[in-house]
């Protein structure tokens, strides 16, 4: 039956660097050799940072850890576009991005080891503490983006979620508020195909997350999240749009969680070796190195030197971690309010006294 068309929807995907290391020259963003090498270095830094945490966890020197293995391009490509005026509202999966944004490694290791004080970041690093309730962080980024818009700031707030987060009501409310208030907010979803054991196709009947932008009157874009150039160029376009005062943007980075969900999970229970092998071929570091080698910007020797340098950096972080004073039990009640009311004072004194005994 014929009717009027009231809305025509279309969603695009950006891919530049293929798994075999070839690039679409037309789409390649204008990055200098130094910048490209910087991106590669960033990705390897994240990998070293992550790998050490996994090792510490296995040795019992770290708590649960949520690995970013395989998501380095999705994090480093975006980080390259961010400035000190920007704000992050991260989940537990953004450790790499936070590192590149200026949240010290030791803070993050301390957080995951189980010390709240890890979340007290240096002044000037506009990053909220990571938090665990899925999708709820997106609203914070929208509120900050509304504030930045009101203040006429240059900054942009970036809110994070995974593919699973898109099912929560807060994802919806965040995108809707972002649209209505023209928030200076980038909604950034790393679709790593899995929410613990639930594959993306059981998360939604929609074929992509990027297309969900059509529900909110804001633009949406999918990028190959294992391709640092696509992530960089796609998020740059989105951020340029937002910085120009044109309102919020949704970017979906298609990537893959190569590790288990966290160190408390065992992904072999629900994923096939074929699938993980397929994605191992598509992972971002490998393809970037292939590209660099083709360009003759990189070789085995440079790689070895970088790895050595990173190993030293990582050891430094671990030393810093282990040099931290143990958190004081009584501090659990000390930060609830500006001043402790009588009942918390009593509890504070109780905890202090008990520890002394």
């Amino acid at each position, binding site marked *: 039956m014929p009717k009027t068309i009231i809305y025509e929807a279309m969603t695009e995907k950006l891919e530049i660097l293929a798994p075999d290391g070839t690039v679409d020259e037309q789409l390649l963003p204008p990055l200098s050799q130094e910048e490209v090498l910087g991106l590669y270095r960033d990705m390897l830094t994240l990998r070293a940072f992550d790998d050490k945490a996994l090792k510490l966890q296995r040795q019992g020197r770290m708590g649960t850890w949520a690995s970013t293995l395989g998501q380095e391009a999705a994090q480093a490509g975006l980080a390259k576009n961010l400035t000190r005026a920007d704000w992050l509202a991260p989940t537990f999966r953004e450790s790499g991005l936070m590192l590149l944004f200026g949240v010290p490694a030791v803070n993050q290791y301390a957080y995951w080891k189980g010390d709240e004080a890890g979340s007290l970041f240096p002044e000037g690093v506009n990053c909220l503490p990571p938090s665990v309730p899925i999708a709820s962080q997106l609203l914070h980024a929208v509120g900050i983006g509304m504030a930045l818009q009101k203040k006429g700031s240059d900054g942009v707030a970036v809110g994070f979620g995974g593919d699973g987060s898109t099912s929560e009501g807060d994802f919806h409310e965040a995108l809707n508020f972002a649209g209505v208030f023209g928030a200076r907010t980038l909604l950034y979803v790393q679709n790593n195909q899995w929410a613990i054991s639930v594959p993306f196709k059981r998360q939604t009947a929609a074929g992509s997350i990027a297309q969900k932008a059509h529900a909110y009157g804001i633009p949406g874009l999918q990028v190959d999240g294992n391709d640092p150039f696509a992530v960089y160029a796609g998020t740059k376009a989105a951020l340029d749009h937002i910085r120009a005062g044109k309102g919020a943007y949704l970017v979906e980075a298609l990537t893959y969680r190569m590790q288990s969900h966290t160190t408390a999970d065992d992904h072999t229970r629900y994923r096939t070796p074929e699938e993980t092998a397929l994605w191992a071929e598509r992972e971002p570091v490998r393809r970037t190195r292939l590209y660099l080698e083709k360009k003759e910007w990189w070789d085995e020797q440079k790689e070895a030197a970088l790895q050595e340098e990173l190993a030293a950096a990582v050891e430094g972080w671990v030393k810093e971690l282990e040099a931290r004073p143990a958190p004081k039990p009584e501090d659990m009640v000390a930060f609830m*309010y500006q001043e402790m009311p009588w009942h918390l004072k009593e509890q504070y004194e109780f905890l202090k006294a008990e520890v002394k005994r």
Partner: protein
Amino acid sequence: MSAAKEQEETKKLTLVQAVQDALRTEMELDERVLVMGEDVGRDGGVFRATEGLLDQFGPERVMDTPLAESGIVGTALGLAVAGFRPVAEIQFMGFVYPAINQLFAHVARFRNRSRGRYPLPMVVRMPYGGGIHPPEHHSESYESLFLNTPGLKVVVPSTPTDAKGLLIQAIREEDPVIFLEPKRIYRAFREEVPSGAYTIPLGELRVAREGSDVTLIAWGAMSRVVLEASEFLVKDGVSAEVLDLRTLNPLDLDGILESVRKTGRAVVVHEAPRNTGFGAEIATLIHERLPLELEAPVARVTGFDCVFPFPMTEEHYLPTRDRVIAAVRKTLDF
């Protein structure tokens, strides 16, 4: 009441007008203060608590939001982090549930989670309580939920003067405040309310009536019911001291204990269901701390353990003067 600025003038205001006056006063003084919520703009709020604010301060500071409570509280949090002082309205306390995740998982935890880096100077206002004969979900008293969850301050005025001074203080707090407005007495009476800005500190109860035989403890609309009961009891020669808590967290426990030390008896009155209500906490604190001074167990007069009823029976749900009197008598006869 510690007047921030000496004020001679007063205006005769209802409680809801005092709320509005507080918002306007503080918005004039501090441009970081924002108002947001459903229908708070053009409509001026379904109870008129934000009337005139949109015209005076414009849509950047008075924001009609989409119909989404989690969105309201979650974005208010972001605004607070980035330097504003949002005063968010939940249209009725019965509709706060969708915002519970943002309130409890984030607002109540943010200062602690960031070890003090991000305190949240924000207020969430909610008309609450029964007595206006509305459809379902418009009469609830959920204060218990906010008290068992650490990290929020909880304030409940019961007079216009308190409403204004407490709300201004709430806005100036560096901690998030749940500000509960007893809608049953939004327009029950007028009072001379000082013009201009003044504050009433959180955590200090108000002795609404002095007495020596029994301590009656209440907040919100129940403060009025209890006061009425105390007046009636005079005829029987019973001198009741009436405490209007004003702030439920932090609680003015010293003020309560001081009174009960004097009277030896206490009755707590609240509209919320009895089971695990704040009455139980108050009773327990008194029993724990004054075991030898108490001459009778602390009595509770509360709502029933059921859904707040529809208008045709709602008057039977709410604690009444007579129920309070009966509880006092039982306590005295113990």
